[in-house]
């Protein structure tokens, strides 16, 4: 959903790109990546999208028709899985509306915090810092000529993201996320894509449905402020191993325990760090955790689908890392938190 709210970021992108073009060698791959990120802000289209995500335990998939009107209106109408058949999500700028026609109700959820849009140049910088991109020309996808781009992690030298980008419009037609072992972790691809104008009336929210708004959160890219207001002596967020940088934070109290949640990204992957004022670990029972050592301290590791959880305590605080990365990488990130 991020990519549909990029109009405001276009200028920042140009800035990032001009920095890229000032480099000694033309950074065509990175320019192409940024063009792909910003394409929906200028291109209207319709199509059918198939998305799948795989893990050891189970996989999930969906099929939906998508209609997009540049710069920031999108409607996705689901046809699969059966539980979502007929439901749709309309994105209007920074807000998602989940429309449930069976129950005549609409859920309103912010899909982006206002500040984070300003972080778009930073995202480009993160990708530049942590990945090198390889471009291949002369391919086609869904009958259209494409450029193929592979983002290779500079730390592990492994490809983690592969995009097929429409040569004319720069829209991403196929996106594959790869595991560190090279296996496919998720794929999202277009079928029957058409670049055409879509009437604005397609994105109206049914006025007669009951509207429910998601509760307000204190999510912010001002991480230091959120940490100071966490209600306990939270550890100051810092850069983690493998180029993971803090993007956003939110804090609160759940079951009487105050916590600070910081979202990190390396430009392609995202992980969450939860720091809890309580010394007690999260209840991982349903995920069948196994004991592990984290920097000499006992901890627990569990997997929920493709998502790994690593939890440990330093005696006064409990930390939990959550993300779609392997246990060795989670341990590496945990070690980089040690003062």
């Amino acid at each position, binding site marked *: 959903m991020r990519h549909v709210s990029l109009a405001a970021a276009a200028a920042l992108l140009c800035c990032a790109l001009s920095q890229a073009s000032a480099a000694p060698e033309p950074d065509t791959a990175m320019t192409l990546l940024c063009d792909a990120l910003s394409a929906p802000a200028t291109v209207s289209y319709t199509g059918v999208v198939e998305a799948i995500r795989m893990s050891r335990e189970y996989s999930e998939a969906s099929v939906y028709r998508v209609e997009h009107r540049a710069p920031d209106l999108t409607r996705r109408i689901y046809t699969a899985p059966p539980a*979502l058949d007929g439901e749709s999500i309309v994105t209007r700028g920074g807000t*998602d509306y*989940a429309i*449930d026609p069976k129950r005549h109700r609409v859920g309103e959820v912010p899909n982006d915090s206002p500040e984070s849009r300003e972080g778009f140049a930073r*995202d480009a910088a993160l990708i530049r810092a942590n990945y090198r991109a390889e471009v291949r020309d002369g391919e086609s996808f869904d009958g259209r000529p494409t450029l193929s781009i592979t983002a290779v992690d500079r730390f592990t030298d492994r490809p983690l993201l592969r995009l097929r980008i429409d040569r004319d419009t720069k829209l991403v037609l196929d996106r594959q996320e790869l595991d560190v072992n090279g296996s496919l972790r998720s794929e999202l691809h277009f079928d029957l894509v058409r670049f055409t104008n879509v009437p604005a009336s397609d994105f109206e929210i049914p006025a007669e449905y009951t509207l429910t708004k998601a509760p307000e959160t204190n999510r912010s890219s001002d991480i230091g402020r959120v940490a100071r207001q966490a209600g306990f002596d939270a550890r100051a967020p810092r850069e983690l191993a493998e180029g993971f940088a803090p993007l956003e934070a939110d804090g609160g109290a759940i079951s009487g325990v105050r916590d600070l949640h910081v979202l990190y990204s390396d430009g*392609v992957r995202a992980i*969450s760090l939860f720091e809890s004022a*309580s010394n007690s670990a*999260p209840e991982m029972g349903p995920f069948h955790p196994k004991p592990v050592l984290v920097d000499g301290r006992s901890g627990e590791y569990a997997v929920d689908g493709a998502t790994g*959880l690593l939890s440990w305590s330093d005696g006064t605080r409990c930390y939990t890392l959550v993300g779609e990365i392997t246990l060795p990488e989670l341990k590496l990130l945990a070690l980089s938190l040690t003062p």
Partner: protein
Amino acid sequence: MNDRHLTPDEIVDYLHGELPITRDAAVAMHLAQCRTCAEAREAEAALTEMVRAVAQKQERTVPSAMMSSIRAAAERPPQRASRPFWFARPLVALPVALAAGLAIWLGMRSFTVNPPKPSIAAGYLVDRHAITSAIAPFADDAPIPPVFASDNAPR
């Protein structure tokens, strides 16, 4: 083997690894070919898992201090043989020690053990990560978007 179904006892013994090895192999082959028995095996396995889960929930742990003192006592070298006082003779001392130990343990549970610490369900953390990580570049468009996750999503 293939012309009759397995008995419930055979299935239970198979699940517990208590069959002789040749019989075990024959049962495994039969289960691979017989849908009825395979379903019975699944049902039995599910029941066993449920019983185990209930048992684990009700399991109580002896305090580590008590365990270590028992171990220390067991490893202590035997004292010089001598006739103990009447109150130290096993017939008297053992029940008294057990009763005292039990009283101390129960006392510790009642008065010195801290109340259970509050804890957060790990699934909640996974959901929170899924919702917020959509802002990361290229991390959006999950097959089942988080906005559905708490409603009809087939998770």
